[in-house]
């Protein structure tokens, strides 16, 4: 991945930002690259797609990765996909758990290491959810809603619904009365469950896992529509680090997680069945949506 490519992607990031976030990504770009390469630590980025507010979960993952790779692992959490993706592309983290949508957007700069398997598959769905008592059958009934998205760079939490609206010819500025970005799938569920938003777009995996963990909250929402099966948010690295010993150890640790007791403990906390080698075809659906919306986004 050359400097030119990084600049191109950064320009896109800046356009989507209303603060200096994009600029800071550029600033930390060179600085972070050298930092990740110099020390013996392994920096691993996380996005809100996971239940990263669970400290025990993070601690268990960190412990496993340290044991499995032999590196001192530092978990790096950021609020938005944009920030984590920027860290990954700029090399400030060695690897990161990102979303399929940023992967498709920055495919040239990223290389997939592994994809989580949920119920034995590397696939998940996007759910369009509403309040339990909401009288609605499909997206057309959601006109004039306050709608909660997870993140503008989230596949399940934005892209799928945006694509659906596009298919129906709905303009987001007029179809919804207001849109919210909650920067977390759990927050989308909270927004809809509380009534702040009348509908929301959420990661199906997160919704299902939270239904087990927080049934009181999630049961105040219901699924209006499930999307097609799409590629599960993958673990990626910057193409700059691809093939390095550290990245190889990270990939092996992920793939072997189901074969290790400590790893199974991590998987249990994530409610996953394991990690597998990437199957690029799983992301074709996301790529098609991105392609379809390229002109309007």
């Amino acid at each position, binding site marked *: 991945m050359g400097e030119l490519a990084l600049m191109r992607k950064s320009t896109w990031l800046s356009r989507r930002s209303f603060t200096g976030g994009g600029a800071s990504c550029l600033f930390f770009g060179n600085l972070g690259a050298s930092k990740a390469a110099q020390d013996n630590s392994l920096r691993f980025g996380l996005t809100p797609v996971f239940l990263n507010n669970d400290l025990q979960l993070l601690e268990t993952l960190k412990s496993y990765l340290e044991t499995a790779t032999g590196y001192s692992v530092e978990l790096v959490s950021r609020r938005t996909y944009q920030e984590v993706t920027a860290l990954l592309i700029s090399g400030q983290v060695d690897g990161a758990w990102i979303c399929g949508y940023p992967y498709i957007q920055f495919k040239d700069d990223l290389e997939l290491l592994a994809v989580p398997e949920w119920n034995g598959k590397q696939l998940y769905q996007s759910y369009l959810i509403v309040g339990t008592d909401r009288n609605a059958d499909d997206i057309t009934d959601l006109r004039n809603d306050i709608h909660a998205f997870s993140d503008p760079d989230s596949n399940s939490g934005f892209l799928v619904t945006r694509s659906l609206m596009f298919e129906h010819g709905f303009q987001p500025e007029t179809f919804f009365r207001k849109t919210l970005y909650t920067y977390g799938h759990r927050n989308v569920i909270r927004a809809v469950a509380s009534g*702040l938003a009348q509908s929301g777009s959420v990661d199906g995996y997160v919704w299902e896992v939270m239904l087990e963990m927080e049934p009181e909250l999630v049961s105040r929402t219901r699924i209006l529509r499930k999307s097609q099966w799409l590629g599960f948010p993958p673990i990626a690295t910057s193409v700059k680090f691809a093939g390095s010993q550290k990245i190889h150890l990270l990939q092996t640790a992920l793939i072997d997680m189901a074969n290790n007791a400590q790893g199974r403990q991590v998987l249990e906390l994530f409610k996953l069945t394991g990690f597998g080698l990437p199957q690029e075809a799983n992301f074709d659906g996301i790529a098609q949506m991105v392609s379809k919306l390229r002109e309007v986004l």
Partner: protein
Amino acid sequence: MSRPFSLLRIPLIWRVTLAVALLMILVSAVITERVLNRLGTIQQIYLQSTADSYVNGVNASISSSVINEDSWEIFDVLERLKPTNTAIVPIQTIVTNKAGTILAATDPVKHPSLSQLPEDLISQFSSTAIRISSESALAFLERDIQYQDKKIGKIYTVFDAKTLLNERKEVLTTLILTNALVTALLAFGGFLTVRRMLRPLQTLESHMIEAVDGKAQKILVGSSLARNWEARRLFRAYNSLIEADEQRRELSFKLAEEERLASLGRLSSVMAHEINNPLGGLLNAVDTIRKHGANAQIRDRSVDLLERGLQGIAEVVRGALATYRPDRQSRPLGEGDFHDVKMLISPELRQRNQKLDLETDWDSGFACNLPSGPVRQAMTNLLLNASAASYDHADLLLKVKRSADRLQIEVGDRGGGLPIESVKMLTGQIEKSLPAGKGLGLWVVRQIASELDAKLEVTPRAGGGSIISMALPIEVKPEIENAA
């Protein structure tokens, strides 16, 4: 007609108890008012500071989100900053933009984003000071959201003030209960103390009431009632009073007896004179009979003389006997007693050529319950006094009038009127002590009248002099009345 209620009619012991209770209630009311006032101020300050810190915290956290009208961020902040361990909990927080449109609220269903805040809710808020509504147990606070000294929105917060109001209510209840208990205890303590303090006085009072009824008894100074020296001193003083009174009574009795004997002596001397006067004539008659007894005419005249003389002596002796024989003292008063008194006094009257008119309104069968002895004594004293006060040849009066329930005896003189002291002695407050100087006879009359529950009156007599009336209550004996 019943008299109006007066506190003075309540016994002292209850008055003191009531006073203690009222005082304590007053003190309690003042204390309660002060405590609640102070508590209210403290709670207001606490509520204001707690509310301020919450609202200021929210304000600082959401100002940038308010600019961006980011409803989720505002909602998330409201959710996260909601305190749970304070005495007041914000139960409703609403954030609006400058135009008054709701951006986010803790209860989005009730106050949806992009809607307008209801006017009736806005009216509950008053400037920046917190307002507590006792009716709803809620507190209301609004605050402008400032960004770079410009107003960009408003925060409306409704707090649950139930805990504070309950605390105030609990304090009030505790104060009332505590004060009521303390009041009751103090009132009861006051009652016991006053009762203990007043017990010697009550003992004294009961003994004095008994003394008034003529059953005066000394108080045992060594008894459990005389616990302190003041009570003992009081009892000793009372006992001394009783002793002195007894002594005075004995002295009075003795003096009265002496007076009776003195009057008896006086009458005896007069009687002796009355007996002695005819004795010369009688002895002459005896000599005449002895010398000229053969002459029937002379003898008969002498015998007649003897008989008249002896009859006169017999009348004098009979009157004296009727007056002073003890067995006749208590027999019921009869009409003969008035004639006896007239007979008894007649020698005294003769000496001064005075006349006594006896008028009695006494049916032959009438009888009453009055004892003859004291009444005769009183009449004798009054007549002796009337005789002494009147001039020679005066016409004295002894009049007896009878009504259904009383017997009125009037003694009239022809003197210059009774001295004020004598009138006071007869009609005024009874004097238990003996009068100084003369007037013992009238004092005895007053004592007798008192004993017989009789009323004495002094009125002027037509033609000069005074009339002393003694109205005696009587109980007519019906069988005798009917028999009459």
